[in-house]
């Protein structure tokens, strides 16, 4: 009886683990130029006696201050100055903080957090006051709710299911990738009213469908770049969320970053899978620098536990395209990478 049970459990576990354990793919792009870079190592200095946890989210504001939304015993949001000195904590004890996923800073320097435990997206003013919230935390009055299994329930306009990221176009419309248990991108106006969505609660691999949309960014023309993680691709949507292009040659679509300035670049991370299965360090971990049209300019970095290796880069800040800040899941650190400038002409191949 016991043996039978064990076998059944083991089988179920293999099935459950299959996706996560082997969520790695070598990028198909070949002859990509290596971009030389140097790493600061972990350049942030937390308050005495405090530590970074899983540093899943990192962003800078216009002054170069660094915001880290991270998982320690509790999920917390810390602000550092441009030299990595601790400035303050924002949202201590805040209801919308439970399990960090993303932080982004909008053009007005407001700080937006995306929490995949509380299912909330929160806009903080530059001073750290709550300006607007999207989504709702599942009410605690329901008690300890059983872990859900089976198909996802239908997606709702104003409720998220483990949302992952947020971005804005020049008009202030809000775009949210949602997420682990919906599979969609949602567009709201600047006041938070629902406008449109691409995808649904169901995973899919056609154009405009997603399988774990894990991050997004919006360029100055209003195009939306979506890291379509479990489909191992990036999808580009127009401002009305109609599919425009697919970039499927840079490995897993873990996280996207679009730089500022007159000439914008797209950075895409082929992050190594959690748990570091054998061989994964040989074929994953690098970050690609691309033109917005998908032309690859170069790549940099590799998987590894110690600096300057990457341990599952979860998010990048690329406000300055030659100074990239990475937040890593499995090394609890934030690195600042200084890249040697590259131009499209230097790209040898796509």
């Amino acid at each position, binding site marked *: 009886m016991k043996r039978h049970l064990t076998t059944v459990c083991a089988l179920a*576990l293999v099935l459950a683990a299959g996706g996560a354990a082997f969520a790695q793919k070598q990028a198909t792009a070949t002859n990509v130029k290596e971009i030389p870079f140097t790493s600061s190592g972990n350049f942030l200095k937390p308050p005495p006696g405090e530590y970074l946890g*899983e540093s899943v989210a990192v962003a800078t504001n216009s002054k170069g201050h660094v915001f880290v939304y991270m998982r*320690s015993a509790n999920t917390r949001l810390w602000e550092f100055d441009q030299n990595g000195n601790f400035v303050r904590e924002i949202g201590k004890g805040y209801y919308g903080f439970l399990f960090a996923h993303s932080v982004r800073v909008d053009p007005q320097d407001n700080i937006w957090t995306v929490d995949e*435990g509380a299912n909330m997206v929160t806009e903080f003013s530059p001073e750290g006051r709550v300006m607007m919230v999207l989504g709702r935390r599942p009410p605690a009055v329901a008690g300890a709710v059983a872990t859900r299994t089976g198909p996802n329930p239908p997606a709702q306009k104003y409720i998220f299911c483990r949302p992952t990221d947020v971005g804005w176009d020049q008009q202030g419309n809000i775009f949210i990738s949602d997420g682990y248990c919906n599979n969609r991108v949602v567009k709201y106006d600047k006041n938070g009213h629902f406008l449109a969505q691409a995808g649904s609660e169901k995973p899919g691999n056609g154009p405009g469908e997603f399988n774990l949309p894990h991050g997004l960014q919006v360029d100055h023309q209003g195009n939306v770049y979506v890291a379509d993680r479990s489909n191992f691709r990036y999808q580009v949507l127009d401002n009305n969320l109609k599919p425009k292009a697919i970039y499927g040659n840079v490995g897993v679509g873990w996280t996207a970053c679009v730089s500022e300035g007159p000439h914008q670049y797209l950075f895409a991370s082929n992050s190594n899978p959690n748990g570091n*299965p054998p061989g994964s360090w040989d074929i994953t971990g690098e970050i690609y620098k691309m033109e917005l049209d998908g032309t690859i300019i170069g790549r940099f970095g590799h998987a590894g536990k110690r600096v300057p290796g990457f341990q599952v880069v979860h998010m990048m800040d690329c406000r300055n395209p030659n100074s990239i800040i990475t937040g890593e899941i499995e090394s609890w650190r934030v690195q600042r990478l200084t890249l040697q400038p590259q131009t499209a002409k230097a790209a040898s191949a796509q």
Partner: protein
Amino acid sequence: MKRLLAALISTAALAGFPAIAQNAAPDIQFASAPNPLTMPDDIYLGEVGGVATNAQGDIFVYTRTGQPTVSLGGSRAFAHGGSRLFHFDRNGRYVGEIGKDSYGFMFANQVRIDPQNNIWVVDQMTSMVIEFDPTGRNVLLLLGRKPESINIPVRAGAAEGGPGGGPPGAGRPQDVFDRPTDVAWDNAGNIFVADGLGNARIAKFDKDGKFIKSWGQKGTAPGQFGNVRSIAVDAQGNVYAADGGNHRIQVFDNNGTFKTEYDNLGNPQALCLTAGANPVLYVSDSNPPNNIDTAGEIYKMGLDGKIMGKFGHAGKQLGEFGTVNAIDCRTPNQLYVGEVGNLRVQKITLR
């Protein structure tokens, strides 16, 4: 269901193998110093998972204390808190806390200090091994990853590192652990993780944390484990594993090839290997947490398996032991012993 089965099995094991070791080791005289650690008024030790000293004699205690917590009102159930790492000077005076509010601290199992004085913590619930620098200020290396959430109700095997298609307890060939218990290093800096109470394997990594190999699975044959509760590595790189449940210590070479086993030490739960030219192994035949009328003695043993003596027994008074989970033996004949049952650390001087 799984938990119930496990309980039944351990009961059967206790009934079948009285945990009294069958040998005639001489008794070693010893003394236990009262109040070896001075605690601040508002800090208490809980169950002591680990105790270790560094080269300066400073004492580090990794303990289950405070409140392990599950947050309500999430899309999943998130667990946090429940263990802390305290630092004392060589005289036992409290210095401070390391890893406050760490994501990796939930259920303390072990702390060890490597030859470079780095502080390594093994947490059974987050299934993580964490290396701090000697000051404790910076995290240098992480192995394993805390499961993002817990399942309600707990599903059998849900938190496990998983068999990866292999036999039960063999785990996956990567740094995913299931209730790891201990860590040790060879002279080349390779890292050995005892994994543990969910899995039943030993995992080997290079000094930069790259997975090399793992060996072991659930079972009773040579190279198999009931579980792995503690490990030590000698100067030649041999690995000593406390095979809880199978009432033995197994010895492997540096690549995991089985060499021999010692089965006359009761049910080993904590190991400590001394440094120097003539190393000895201290082995605790720890009593189960639900019984102080059996076992509890600590053995002093040569690496060849020859028992040199034993001391102590289970109990609650000073000089008695309550489910010892950790031994520090940096100083010859002076041990720090960490107890699960008595929420304390004892400083033991052997005569």
